[in-house]
């Protein structure tokens, strides 16, 4: 029997949170197989596209960017949820965020790769991806994109891993009944974590510092993503508002995604104690603010366009409001604003079910919103609206690949929750208060017993 030589703070929910890791029921394996199947079909669809060319999509002249770029923006936007909750709320000192941080960060961690994958899927010559490094031109917003998203991905992995570290050590020490390869994995990943006060102290400091850095990165990343559109001369894209618009949309859709994920985790892993109803109420208030903020941006943007009445801008405006994209546009407005706001104000208090419904609608609506930002402008480009008018119908290939990206996200997330605790146990313990951790010498075994008596 291995003597436990590492300090783990006491947490009343430890058993409940570690329970999912001790078990791997067959229905989970079935779910994973199903999701992997969907991903596999997506891979096949992509291989076919790689061999034949991007002609298998519905893109054409002038709609050169379609569903794939929509996915890119959407997934990068989803990723902002985690950073918002763990980094921005950390800086704001919102203590209620603590149980959510890892679940939210995991969304970041697992959606970013699919955002990047969406771009590679969209490239005409993905085999030449390295050209961006070898021949990179920093005048191009795509280079800013590449830098920012790479930095964000890398930093998210590190931030996530560091926050996970004490809990990996906990798994290493407590999970004696899991397969030996899994125990070895914990041992390696734990990096010899001992739980000393000095280590906790330094960890907290680094996480505080990284939280500030990640906040800056988040603001940069989605602004830079929006500037891929904003820096062109196309009507509907070339607006100064596009940076804040995308940023707010990202945090909005991301927070809604967090609600959905939390509700699922709570139900599937029986984490009612660790994820109380008050969390959902706090998120509800945030989502109300974001929803109204989104409406503000929409009004600011469209009223300005309408009032100015510039012909090329109005072509895109009418495309959205009454033209080919009217049904999608109004559906989006209803899904993102009207129904969720009604639910949040009148139904969702103390009701997780209503929160989830609103959040699902918000995410569908926000995907449509990305579509509405990107495609109508392309159908009425600046000069060509006089000459050629475009139309776009995504093909089955594009839908299959889109679906497989979402399936991949869910798959990675589901696998993760069976190997690592989804609630940060070391952060949510009542006994772990920063003031109690002074770097003073003390015997590690003695500390734990003394604490139990004091509690």
């Amino acid at each position: 029997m291995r003597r436990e030589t590492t300090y783990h703070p006491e947490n009343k929910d430890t058993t409940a949170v570690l329970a999912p890791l001790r078990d791997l029921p067959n229905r989970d394996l079935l779910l994973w197989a199903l999701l992997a199947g969907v991903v596999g079909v997506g891979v096949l669809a992509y291989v076919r596209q790689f061999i034949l060319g991007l002609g298998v999509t519905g893109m054409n002249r002038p709609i050169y960017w379609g569903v794939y770029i929509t996915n890119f923006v959407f997934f990068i936007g989803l990723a902002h949820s985690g950073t918002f909750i763990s980094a921005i709320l950390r800086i704001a000192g919102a203590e209620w965020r603590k149980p959510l941080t890892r679940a939210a960060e995991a969304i970041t961690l697992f959606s970013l790769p699919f955002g990047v994958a969406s771009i590679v899927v969209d490239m005409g010559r993905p085999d030449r991806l390295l050209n961006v490094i070898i021949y990179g031109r920093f005048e191009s917003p795509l280079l800013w994109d590449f830098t920012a998203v790479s930095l964000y991905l890398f930093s998210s992995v590190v931030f996530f891993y560091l926050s996970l570290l004490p809990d990996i050590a906990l798994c290493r020490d407590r999970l004696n009944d899991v397969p030996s390869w899994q125990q070895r994995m914990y041992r390696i990943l734990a990096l010899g974590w001992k739980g000393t006060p000095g280590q906790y102290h330094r960890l907290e400091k680094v996480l505080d510092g990284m939280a500030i850095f990640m906040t800056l990165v988040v603001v940069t990343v989605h602004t830079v993503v929006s500037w891929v559109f904003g820096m062109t001369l196309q009507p509907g894209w070339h607006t100064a508002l596009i940076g804040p618009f995308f940023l707010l949309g990202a945090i909005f859709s991301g927070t809604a995604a967090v609600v959905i994920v939390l509700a699922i985790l709570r139900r599937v892993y029986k984490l009612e104690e660790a994820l109380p109803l008050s969390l959902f109420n706090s998120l509800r208030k945030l989502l109300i603010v974001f929803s109204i903020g989104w409406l503000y941006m929409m009004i600011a943007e469209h009223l300005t366009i309408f009032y100015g009445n510039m012909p090329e801008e109005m072509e895109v405006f009418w495309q959205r409001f009454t033209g080919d994209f009217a049904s999608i546009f109004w559906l989006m407005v209803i899904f993102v604003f009207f129904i969720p706001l009604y639910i949040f104000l009148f139904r969702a208090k103390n009701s997780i079910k209503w929160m989830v419904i609103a959040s699902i609608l918000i995410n569908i609506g926000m995907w449509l919103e990305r579509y509405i930002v990107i495609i109508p402008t392309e159908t009425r480009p600046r000069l060509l609206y006089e000459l050629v008018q475009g139309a776009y119908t995504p093909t089955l290939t594009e839908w299959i690949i889109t679906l497989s990206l979402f399936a991949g996200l869910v798959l990675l997330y589901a696998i993760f929750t069976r190997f690592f605790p989804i609630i940060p146990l070391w952060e949510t313990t009542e006994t772990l208060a920063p003031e109690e951790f002074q770097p003073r010498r003390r015997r590690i075994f003695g500390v734990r017993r003394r604490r139990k008596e004091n509690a």
Partner: protein
Amino acid sequence: MPKWSMVIDLDKCVACQGCSIACRFENNTPIVPPSEAALGRSILWNEVFPLRHEEEGAIASDQAKFLTRPCMHCENPPCVKVCPVEATYQDEEGIVRQNYARCIGCRFCTVGCPYGVRYFNWYEPSWEEGLDQHLNPDRVSGRGDLEGPAVRPKGVVEKCTYCIHRLHKAHDRAEAEGRAFRAEDYVPACVQTCTGKARFFGDLDDPNSSVSQLAQSRRAFRLLEEAGTHPKTIYLHEG
């Protein structure tokens, strides 16, 4: 250094599309099947558009109006600005060029161009049987590995090059004949073919060239002048 420019006199243009046809044979533009053309994937470096009639109430002209449009070869090209790998670049003589060997197919330039002159190879280029035996063997020498009429792979962007391979051929011919290069030796295919003699080509910096004199004409205008792109393809409007 010469600054190459094209002037198109819309009064003389009869919209025969000879320019478009000559261009695609000169530059080995891939053919697309009718289903693809219906989708909007035809590759026409020089495209002839019917213009919409905008007048209501006023006596609308019975004459259909057309616009023939090659690349503008802007002096401030928005496409070059956004290319992440310098697959499209502007050379010293003012021609905006495309390097098929380096293009990663991101299509940023295609959405960045406000004139829509850029096209993408959605599939592997193909030609009808027989045509593939008669591709133009001319090649472009220079910074790019694959430019102009070179047979390009799928997944890359292409566009009008002012037939730059003809420029290089003219230089070679002048050198072979032991004389200086003359600007009149360099004529793009569309200019050479034009039925109505509506197209002119030359050095905008040479005050004696036809283009620089026509550019001063009362009828001269450029597309989207307010966009700040400074296009070098200049039109003379009807009148």
